[in-house]
């Protein structure tokens, strides 16, 4: 962070709070692409790159103040669209007016913001009328920049944090069109059996059945249109949907790869997982096939050395999640009667032992199950300056973390993942929950060669299921070691990032804490933010950089589960037909 901050000290982003305060809405400040003069699109202010900070500051102040004064609202922008000359005259008049209004509020900038020329307008409408007229107006100074109505109108509707437009709301309410359900008759049998008795299959008119239907109130259907015969009453009422709605999450469908007729190696398992399609804003059910592959006995156990990290050990040892009663403490809430009796006996016998006679309740109980999910894909092969690949960094981090946690008595599992398309996401069970993390498992981890691609979402979903089913502890934590760069066949950029983020949200919604660590990877922070979303995440060149605050990271991730989570309740709407 320090190096990055140093590099950004000249970045115009430091004016963003000033701009936000003046505009009264969240506003970013960026260098204008291509050295274009200052302008704003309503979401960002673009300043001239490379000019003095004072210049940039007043550029930002003017543009933000224009936004704050409503001078660039949609009606104005529409009026200025395609009329660059009028826009320029408007900027000259309105800019002076806004600055004059602002000057008393910003006493320290009054000098920098001083412009010659009188203020000739008292409001937006008047400025607009003046600009459209023929009167001579002073030219705007260069730092006023220009107004780009097209940009303003383009982002006005879609900017982050902007209120939803009527069209957004309509889209949210639109019902998903449903195909006719073929088989689930019990749900869609809308025709009244009794009414059928009164239907006349011969007569063309269905007036009688309509009349009876209305009279008896038994028909749930509106009157059929002309041409429909009495024997074919159309049904068009609301039904329970048979397919998954956009917000309901399909459950994983377990695969049975082995059976009586085809016995295979023990431990092979898998499931079909849904995937989130951000473009259509709905799940694709049973989309990814995840296979869990156990690793056999390691051939060479010599490679299983573990780097010790004392800081990490100390930090994680302090992690306490539940209260535990400690006996014979020097201070505490209650008297420890056994200790008190011993003390009394000792005192009578002439000894004077230390007065450790209290019971103390401290948060020391752990009950923690951790699954370390390691990215074993080819995207982790990039080398760092020291010649170590990202994969090597992550692998070492996984070994150290798993060994440390196991020493501290937590339940640990280590899985690697890689993928080749959606039908082959492999979960390599380096160390399942039931096993010891012995030399064999360590050797496996060391010999894990990166291959394939990164379908992060499916791997996270499967890891969540493994944790829920096998951890057996009340506190469950998923540690994802990845470079934060999901990529696979048909799984790229925005789609992949959205799916990974969704998968993490689901897992957290199900009561599994998530911590995403990016070790040794050059992925920029913004990208990590997009992939990991609101899940706790941290990145560092090596694990030992994170060790001093690993307890905070763990606690931060786990504490989130202590709060009732509205998102979890929403996600609890499940796909009805695909249960375990």
């Amino acid at each position, binding site marked *: 962070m*320090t190096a990055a*901050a140093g590099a950004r000290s000249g970045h115009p982003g430091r004016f963003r709070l000033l701009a*936000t*305060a003046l505009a009264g809405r969240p506003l970013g400040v960026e260098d204008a692409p291509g050295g274009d003069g200052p302008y704003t699109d309503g979401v960002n202010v673009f300043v001239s790159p490379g000019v003095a900070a004072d210049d940039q500051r007043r550029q930002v102040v003017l543009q933000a103040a224009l936004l704050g004064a409503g001078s660039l609202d949609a009606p104005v922008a529409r009026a200025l669209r395609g009329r660059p000359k009028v826009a320029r005259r408007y900027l000259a008049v309105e800019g002076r007016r806004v600055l004059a209004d602002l000057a008393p*509020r910003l006493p320290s900038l009054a000098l920098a913001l001083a412009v010659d020329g009188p203020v000739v307008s008292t409001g937006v409408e008047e400025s607009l009328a003046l600009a459209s007229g023929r009167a001579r107006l002073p030219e705007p100074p260069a730092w006023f920049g220009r107004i780009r109505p097209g940009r303003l109108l383009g982002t006005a509707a879609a900017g982050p944090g902007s209120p939803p437009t009527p069209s957004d709301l309509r889209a949210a309410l639109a019902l998903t069109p449903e195909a006719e359900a073929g088989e689930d008759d019990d749900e869609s049998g809308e025709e009244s059996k009794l009414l059928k008795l009164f239907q006349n299959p011969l007569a063309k008119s269905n007036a009688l059945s309509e009349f009876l239907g209305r009279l008896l109130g038994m028909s749930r259907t509106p009157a059929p249109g002309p041409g429909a015969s009495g024997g074919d009453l159309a049904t068009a009422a609301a039904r329970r949907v048979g397919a998954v709605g956009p917000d309901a999450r399909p459950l994983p469908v377990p695969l049975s790869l082995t059976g009586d007729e085809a016995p295979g190696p023990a431990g092979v398992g898998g499931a079909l997982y849904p995937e989130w399609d951000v473009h259509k804003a709905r799940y694709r059910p049973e989309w990814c096939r995840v296979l869990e592959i156990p690793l056999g006995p390691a051939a060479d156990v010599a490679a299983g050395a573990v780097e010790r990290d004392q800081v990490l050990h100390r930090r994680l040892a302090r992690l306490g999640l539940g209260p535990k009663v400690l006996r014979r403490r020097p201070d*505490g*809430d209650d008297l420890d009667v056994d200790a008190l009796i011993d003390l009394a006996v000792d005192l009578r016998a002439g000894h004077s032992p230390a007065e450790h006679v209290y019971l103390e309740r401290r948060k020391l109980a752990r009950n923690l199950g951790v699954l370390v999910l390691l990215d074993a894909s080819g995207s982790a092969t990039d080398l760092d300056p020291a010649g170590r690949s990202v994969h090597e960094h992550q692998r070492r981090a996984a070994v150290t973390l798993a060994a440390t946690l196991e020493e501290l008595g937590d339940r640990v599992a280590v899985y690697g993942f890689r993928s080749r398309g959606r039908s082959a996401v492999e979960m390599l069970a380096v160390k399942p929950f039931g096993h010891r993390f012995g030399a064999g498992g360590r050797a496996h981890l060391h010999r894990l060669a990166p291959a394939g691609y990164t379908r992060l979402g499916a791997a996270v979903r499967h890891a969540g299921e493994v944790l829920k089913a096998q951890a057996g502890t009340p506190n469950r934590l998923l540690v994802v070691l990845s470079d934060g760069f999901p990529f696979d066949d048909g799984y790229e950029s925005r789609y992949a990032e959205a799916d990974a983020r969704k998968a993490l949200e689901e897992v957290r919604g199900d009561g599994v804490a998530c911590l995403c660590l990016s070790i040794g990877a050059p992925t920029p922070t913004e990208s990590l933010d997009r992939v990991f979303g609101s899940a706790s995440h941290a990145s560092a060149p090596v694990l030992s950089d994170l060790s001093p605050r690993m307890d905070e990271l763990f606690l931060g991730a786990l504490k989130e589960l202590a709060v009732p989570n509205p998102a979890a309740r929403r996600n609890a709407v499940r796909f009805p037909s695909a249960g375990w």
Partner: protein
Amino acid sequence: MGVPRPVEADLAAPFYRPVGDEVEVFLAAARRGLPVLLKGPTGCGKTRFVEAMAHRLGRGLVTVAGHEDLTSADLVGRFLLKGGETVWVDGPLTRAVRDGAICYLDEVVEARQDTTVVIHPLTDHRRQLPVDRLGIVLDAEPGFQLVISYNPGYQSVLKDLKDSTRQRFVAIELGFPPPDVETDVVAHEAEVDRDTAAALVAVGQAIRNLAASPLREVASTRALILAGSMAAAGLSLRRAVQSAVVDILSDDPDLAAALGELVDAVLPR
């Protein structure tokens, strides 16, 4: 452990400038001995408000700061070993119950939930404090009143008051005072002139009104008073704001720089 002493009632009245009708609400609750829940952001004057009310009512005040290891024994009392025997020592809550004082539990959500349950019998019609370890039930003296404070949306979103606890209280919502009142408060507390105080309040307002603020917290009245005190002690106003507001609100150098730009623009040079 140290047992908090009641604040002496004969000191000079604590400075408190009412903003709305909070004083009337508190006095009405005090007349009937009803427990009060004070809500409001950190540093908006909750503690000062309770001090002022205790002074006005002429009652003692026992303050307990909540922390996450606060146990019921810390509130009620415990046996301590003295010489060869065990001696009972009243906790702050028991002391307030016996003396008829106002007991102010600051940031009570920080405490463990099993601790907050101790106050339940005190907050309904019973007004009793069962002391299990002594096997007695204490009836609260007439002047006894329980006041707790609570920061909604503070870092302890992780913790929340249980509904069964919440519904026993009369709530008073305190916010940051309006600019003119806040200017008075800052000028009085920091001992600076009104212009300086007004400039500080302008900074506070600018930070509080940021839309979609990236800051976890905003500049509280207390932070502004701190900045004012630093200025009164001879520091330049800009430097005082930097040390008492900007560097406090953010550890992120990027964000601190952005905040510095905002402060620069608002403060008179």
